[in-house]
């Protein structure tokens, strides 16, 4: 049973997409008159995908709980923005979201591809049709057998956060836009367009870099402010599988820039475009096939589409490898004389190598469960693996980034470079000295701080230089590098010099922690619009005291304990309070508790107690009454040797109210009493509390425990640099995106293949002006 309009839209998309790809292929093979038809068919494909998304969204907004997906991920109590986000709360919906952005981006791709439209669109469509096929098989429009449930299961409470409303869409824009450089690269190999593809695809690679990067940061920020474990990055497989394509995209952007300006590294860029795309597919396979279920915090469970994902992955790996090998010898290699070692070309190629090695190592660690599955016991790597391997990568990248602005393409003499670096070296030295003064220790972190400051200042000077000559639009790369320096400094300082303390805060009792005093004041009860929170007064000398409200509540649907930290942000540091455990406290207690199993006798201070039987009102239980009387028969043998049969009353309330237990005197022991504390019919046991039987009254006294909140308090110095540096990096990438988009729009490229390496190529007229670039 399926909701047919949605299914029809998906099948329509599959057919229209196939038809469009075939028509584009024919248009490319000597039938240019078919181009308008191919475009119309693409528009049809896009319309179907948008329609399928609209159908799913409508079903969600209308609370159609008879649809399986709606029932599984949404519920009546969700506010509108969370209701919208349930669209991508599950696997099928997030695949559909990926297709949705892919379909919209495609409408821009065929306009921007110009002379390369037909082959590019064939490949571009191919990258999505496999996912459409998966959704035709694993439909989000499956219906539940009637009757329809009155309410849905609801959205995972962890995902009920504004950041989780926008994070997945941005991520999937990035995923979908990575299909574009791949489509251009395969089309370039197919049509022998060795340089033309880079002109058109560079803006798309930059767009991927910006969107994927933004999505990764949003995910990190969400983890930092919601999950309460104090960090923003956990090297979890799901995080890694979006980080790796991003690093490859960064490598691709650098390689494409190199090819645009120096006509070099054509092979490198074709390989990078393929690898970046394939890692997206590989990550999708890793996180959605259930392979990592025992290893990840948030991988999805297996839906039975693993075979499909493997087929799609292997298909594109095979296609890329075959296309590259097929054309390998035809790809022209730069004839230009070899640049000196200390030139920008060499720095770039080194940077690309470091990017690739870093991404490969992260991918290796993430794949550990898969790789070791071949042996007897699947394993994973420790988190320290990533820190160990990423550190040398960061050092190398910072070093290269620092040198780039003052090393020209033609090469630089070391002495000249040294002279231009003096100012920035002084700045780096100053920053390091300041860090030392403020208590930073450790050779490796200090080296990283110094390098980061050096890189940031060198690039900042390049930005200023460009701005002075009125060419700020061309300073995107330098500006991005300034951001890289700032961000890495923030990562190092906030990570290495973070101070974490765990403290128990008894209520109303000021507790000192360093120079800060924390006082747990009360539990602020929750309301439908506000979560239950803990009120903590925070006082530090020289600053105004404030109240922190970390949230701590039980999700009523899942009975999960949810915790959100309270973060006090300043430029210098974040003060992070994450609640850990709340103990409501207990009043003082007098008495002695014993647990008796049916038919056995226990001796307490000379008094023998035998539990004979329960006598529950079964008829009342069967009638479903809320109050049940349980009578407990006990035989008491006090020290004087007599025997007494006693019956204890115990009234149990099904609605969770406290039970009423009758207090009865213990015969033969003056002043002593007993009552039932609890019964457990399954074990045939009863718990009693005795009072006044002990010779020493202190044996029966248990002191009260105070209401206490345990918290983890973290001081994170300069974490604002992580976010700030990231914004600067993205601003730089944005500048480059604007410049390259303009450039691509103005470029007029001749149709047909470009000269290849073999002189035997029929259409390769040496020296002919095949590409004309207009520069701004």
């Amino acid at each position, binding site marked *: 049973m399926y909701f047919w309009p949605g299914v029809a839209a998906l099948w329509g998309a599959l057919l229209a997409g196939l038809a469009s790809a075939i028509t584009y292929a024919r248009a490319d093979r000597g039938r240019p008159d078919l181009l308008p038809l191919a475009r119309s068919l693409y528009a049809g494909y896009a319309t179907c995908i948008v329609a399928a998304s609209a159908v799913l969204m409508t079903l969600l907004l209308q609370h159609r709980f008879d649809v399986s997906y709606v029932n*599984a991920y949404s519920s009546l109590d969700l506010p509108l923005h969370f209701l919208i986000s349930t669209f991508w709360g599950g696997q099928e919906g997030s695949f559909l979201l990926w297709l949705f952005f892919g379909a919209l981006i495609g409408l821009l791709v065929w306009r921007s591809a110009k002379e390369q439209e037909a082959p590019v669109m064939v490949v571009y469509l191919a990258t999505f049709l496999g996912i459409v096929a998966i959704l035709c098989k694993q439909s989000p429009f499956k219906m539940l057998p009637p009757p329809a449930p009155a309410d849905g299961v609801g959205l995972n409470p962890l995902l009920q956060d504004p950041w989780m409303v926008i994070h997945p869409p941005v991520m999937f824009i990035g995923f979908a836009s990575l299909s574009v450089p791949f489509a251009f690269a395969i089309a370039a190999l197919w049509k022998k367009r060795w340089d033309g593809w880079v002109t058109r695809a560079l803006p798309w690679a930059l767009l991927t870099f910006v969107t994927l990067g933004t999505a990764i940061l949003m995910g990190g920020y969400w983890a930092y402010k919601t999950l309460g474990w104090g960090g923003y990055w956990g090297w979890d497989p799901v995080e890694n599988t979006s980080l790796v394509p991003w690093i490859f995209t960064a490598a691709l952007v650098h390689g494409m820039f190199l090819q645009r300006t120096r006509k070099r590294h054509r092979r490198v860029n074709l390989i990078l475009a393929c690898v970046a795309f394939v890692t997206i597919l590989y990550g999708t396979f890793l996180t959605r096939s259930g392979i990592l279920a025992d290893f990840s*915090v948030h991988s999805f469970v297996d839906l039975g589409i693993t075979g499909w994902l493997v087929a799609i992955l292997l298909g594109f790996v095979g296609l890329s490898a075959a296309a590259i090998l097929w054309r390998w010898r035809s790809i022209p290699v730069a004839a230009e004389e070899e640049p000196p070692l200390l030139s920008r070309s060499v720095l770039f190629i080194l940077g690309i190598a470091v990017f690739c090695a870093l991404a490969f190592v992260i991918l*290796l660690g993430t794949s550990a469960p898969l790789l070791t599955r071949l042996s007897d016991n699947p394993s994973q*790597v420790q988190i320290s693996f990533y820190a160990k391997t990423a550190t040398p*990568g960061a050092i190398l990248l910072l070093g290269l980034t620092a040198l780039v602005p003052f090393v020209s393409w033609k090469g630089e003499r070391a002495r000249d470079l040294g002279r231009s670096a003096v100012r920035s070296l002084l700045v780096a030295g100053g920053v390091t000295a300041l860090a030392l003064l403020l208590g930073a220790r450790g050779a490796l972190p200090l080296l990283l701080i110094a390098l980061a400051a050096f890189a940031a200042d060198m690039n900042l000077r390049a930005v200023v230089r460009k701005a002075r000559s009125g060419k700020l639009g061309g300073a995107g790369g330098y500006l991005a590098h300034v951001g890289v320096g700032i961000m890495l400094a923030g990562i190092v300082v906030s990570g290495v010099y973070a101070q*974490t303390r765990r403290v128990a805060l008894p209520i109303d009792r000021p507790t000192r922690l360093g120079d800060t005093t924390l006082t747990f004041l009360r539990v602020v009860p929750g309301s439908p619009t506000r979560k239950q929170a803990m009120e903590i007064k925070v006082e530090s000398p020289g600053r105004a005291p404030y109240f922190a409200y970390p949230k701590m509540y039980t999700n009523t649907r899942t009975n999960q304990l949810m915790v959100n930290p309270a973060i006090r942000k300043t430029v210098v540091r974040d003060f992070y309070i994450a609640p850990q455990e709340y103990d409501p406290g207990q009043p003082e207690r007098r008495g002695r508790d014993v647990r008796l199993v049916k038919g056995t006798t226990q001796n307490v201070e000379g008094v023998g107690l035998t539990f004979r039987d329960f006598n529950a009102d079964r008829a009342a239980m069967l009638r479903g009454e809320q109050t049940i009387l349980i009578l407990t028969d006990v035989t008491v043998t006090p020290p004087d040797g007599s025997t007494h049969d006693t019956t204890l009353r115990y009234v149990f309330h099904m609605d969770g109210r406290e039970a009423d237990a009758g207090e009865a005197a213990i015969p033969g022991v003056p002043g002593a009493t007993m009552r039932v504390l609890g019964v457990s019919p399954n074990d045939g046991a009863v718990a009693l509390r005795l009072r006044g039987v002990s010779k020493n009254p202190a044996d029966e006294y248990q002191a009260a425990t105070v209401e206490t909140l345990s918290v983890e308090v973290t001081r994170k110095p300069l974490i604002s640099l992580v976010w700030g540096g990231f914004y600067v990096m993205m601003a730089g990438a944005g500048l480059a995106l604007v410049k390259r988009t303009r450039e691509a729009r103005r470029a007029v490229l001749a149709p047909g293949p470009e000269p290849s390496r073999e002189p035997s190529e029929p259409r390769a007229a040496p020296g002919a002006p095949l590409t004309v670039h207009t520069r701004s």
Partner: protein
Amino acid sequence: MRRGYWIAGILALLFVGLGITSFQKTLTPYVSFEEARSARGVVQVMGSLDKTSDKYDVGTQELSFDLVDDRGGRIPVAYRGTRPANFKDAISIVAIGRYREGRVDAERLLVKCPSKYQGAEVKTYDAPPPAGARS
């Protein structure tokens, strides 16, 4: 350009070599309780919680419990840190750490709770670094 490629290649190879050696060093295999008892490095064991065995001291934040497997095996685990939320409801617990003095000294716990949403939900808990590791 050849020289540039050579340096880049060597750099990348060194890097990947470092990656592979630390990969082998930090690999933590899933092992049975018997294997864990004789293992030298960091391992991970999975089992279900014996609900009568767990003890937690709020003051020192020391958690200890026994894991049992479906073959009737039992292994004690010690963890220093906050007791994971929903610890008692866990259907299975993965403890990652070293076997020392008759118990697994866990650095991390993965707690799998029954969830209505995605079949089962896993959460990770890391022990704080030992005192003095951070300045």
